[in-house]
């Protein structure tokens, strides 16, 4: 009887182990037969879009398993640098701005697009030359253009109405005048709601990018091309002085904004600032976080930054990766992107009117005036280092009240910052002599 019980236990164990082993084997086999694709994004708000694209591919690829890993941009950049140089495994669709991707392309760390994808990208019916060029290197296509960061003014219409302002500012001088009128103050005169939110602190290159956008309105640029792939700094001049002076004037003379005041989209959504310049994704953000906010958008006085972001594919035998990248640029998906996320798609010939009609705030991004001038970040290796260093210098300048009324000091500051940029360009062999 006892022996029988032991035998039963042994056979039960054997059965259980066999079942477990079999299940593990089968699951291993099924996972081996399933296609797995990883998407790396630097914008957490893009995750639902890539999941939507993956869902659309289910019909043709029922076994496709898409893992979307969308993290903060700076961490994403570190991940890409380590992943591509360390040899990441599997097929990965990587979202990168054209200027950042150049460094990887220079060092052959990303593969060329297959012929059909290259033909799709180069077709002027699909993409403007500006966008297909930023997805290419030395004339060869390496990525599929997806969306762009483009700036416009966001302004709180209730606050404008209360201040007696009927239309958005048209010149940079208007911006300061409007900011003064829009600033709300407590009894002591201290600003409680900023008239114009400016990027004044923090780390990273964002401060320099925002400064460049403002300086662009005065006709200036941090870097300008000088032929033969060479560049030089170009902001120690009148445009640079005007732009910096406007920042300092708003902080110290007009006192419309201070570094410690809440800023950016969060502040705008909470009614803590009356206006600010930002990309189109804020429209989607407002729809989610502050749907009752009364606001409008307007083009900037002269033009805007246009920072194209493309999809690149890494990994061997990456056909499914390219199929995903191409599917992301399908008209249906791009309309979904604009409507649900708010980033501006780069593809031409797509009818976005269903979205723009519903959300008039997109008008400033698509219906800009004739002669509106766009600029983008140069596709050169040290661009991030240059912007980060200019940003570090600007933070110091923004903290120097004595500079607000001293043009000579501003000029000296701009000369010093400009020299530092030229030193970096020289070190990398990119300085125009």
């Amino acid at each position, binding site marked *: 009887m006892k022996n029988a019980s032991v035998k039963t236990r042994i056979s039960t164990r054997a059965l259980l182990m066999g079942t477990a082993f079999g299940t593990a084997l089968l699951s291993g086999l099924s996972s081996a037969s399933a296609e797995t694709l990883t998407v790396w994004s630097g914008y957490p708000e893009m995750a639902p879009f890539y999941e939507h694209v993956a869902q659309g591919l289910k019909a043709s690829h029922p076994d496709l398993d898409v893992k979307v890993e969308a993290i903060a941009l700076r961490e994403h950049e*570190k991940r890409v640098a*380590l992943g591509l140089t360390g040899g990441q495994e599997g097929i990965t669709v990587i979202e990168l701005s054209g200027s950042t991707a150049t460094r990887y392309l220079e060092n052959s760390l990303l593969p060329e697009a297959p012929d059909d994808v290259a033909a799709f990208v180069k077709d002027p019916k699909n993409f403007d030359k500006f966008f297909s060029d930023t997805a290419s290197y030395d004339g060869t296509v390496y990525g599929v253009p997806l969306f762009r960061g483009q700036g416009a003014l966001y302004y709180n219409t209730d606050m404008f109405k209360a201040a007696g302002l009927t239309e958005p500012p048209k010149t940079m001088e208007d911006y300061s005048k409007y900011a003064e009128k829009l600033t709300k103050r407590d009894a002591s005169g201290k600003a409680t709601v900023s008239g114009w939110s400016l990027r004044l602190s923090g*780390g990273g290159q964002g401060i320099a990018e925002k400064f460049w956008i403002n300086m662009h309105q005065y006709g200036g640029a941090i870097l300008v091309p000088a032929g033969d792939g060479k560049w030089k700094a170009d902001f120690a001049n009148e445009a640079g002085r005007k732009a910096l002076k406007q920042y300092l004037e708003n902080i110290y003379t007009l006192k419309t904004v201070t570094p410690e*005041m809440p800023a950016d*989209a969060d502040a705008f959504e909470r009614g803590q600032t009356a206006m600010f310049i930002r990309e189109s994704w804020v429209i989607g953000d407002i729809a989610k976080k502050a749907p009752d906010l009364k606001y409008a958008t307007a083009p900037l006085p002269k033009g805007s930054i246009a920072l194209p972001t493309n999809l690149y594919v890494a990994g061997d035998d990456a056909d499914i990766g390219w199929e995903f990248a191409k599917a992301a640029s399908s008209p249906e998906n791009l309309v979904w992107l604009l409507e649900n996320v708010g980033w501006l798609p780069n593809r031409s010939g797509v009818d976005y009117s269903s979205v723009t009609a519903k959300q008039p705030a997109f008008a400033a991004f698509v219906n800009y005036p004739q002669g509106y001038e766009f600029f983008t970040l140069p596709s050169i290796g040290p661009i*991030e280092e240059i912007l980060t260093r200019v940003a570090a210098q600007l933070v110091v300048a923004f*903290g120097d009240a004595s500079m607000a009324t001293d043009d000579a000091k501003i000029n000296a500051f701009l000369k010093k910052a400009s020299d530092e940029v030229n030193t970096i360009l020289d070190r990398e062999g990119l300085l125009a002599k």
Partner: protein
Amino acid sequence: MLKRKRFIFAILAILPTLAIFAYVRLYPIADTLRLSLFKWDILSRNKPFIGLANFRELTGDHLFLDALVNTTIIAFGVLFLTIPMALVIAALIFHRTRSRMAGFYETAVFIPHVVSLVPAAMAWKWIFDARLGPLNALLDFFGIPMQNWLFDPVLSVICIIVLCSWQALGYAVLIYIVGFKNLPVSLYEAAKLDGASGPQSFWHLSIPMLKPITLYVSVVTLVSGFNVYAQAFVLASDAQGAPGRQVRVLVLDMLENSFRNYRVGYAASEAVVLLVIVLVLTLIQFSMLRERGRA
């Protein structure tokens, strides 16, 4: 013969440990030293030897020099704040050992040391907030002008010193309590018989006798102070565009040069400078302990 066999056995027994130690501790240091002599771009295939050019560039790099000055101020600031406070708190806890609350005191002081850094730093970020923070509310209550704690170049460094000291204090107190427990009771009894008061015993007996502990805690605190990073990063960061002023510290500068600028060789030369600083501090500790041993 037996002695030799024992020796070989001992070597063989210790070899795996030595090999692991060499691989995970010594090799990275040696490799960092090597990298500092190259133009080692993480993405570039061409990584030429450039001798001491990275170190020469460091001498004129204002961001590195800012980081070095800030890090040094933070490290010594934490040291000068933590050591006297830890000594006094440890003495108070030790002399209340018989109290029912002794366990609570020890735990309360030690908890900040084990709390995860990021949520702790976020809490301090709120405390230092210029508009909504309780610190400014308190200042305002007493009629003192409110301060831009996280935006002023000097105050933002002080904020990091306070945060780091708050974290380092628990460990220092714990080590000091162990030190106090090992002090000979007879000396205190003799001092009491001679009419010494409590503070006099603390000043003339405890402090001199705890010198080795003070040296150990000092170096540990100073070395961790030179490695400050997350505190500066969290206090300056936010979801979007409204962060505090970024206090540049050495580790932050290294990370930026490595992964944003892809200049790993240059970042390695910064790491070498940090290594030299830490080594010098450790040597000072050893020499001071040795002097005490001879005395």
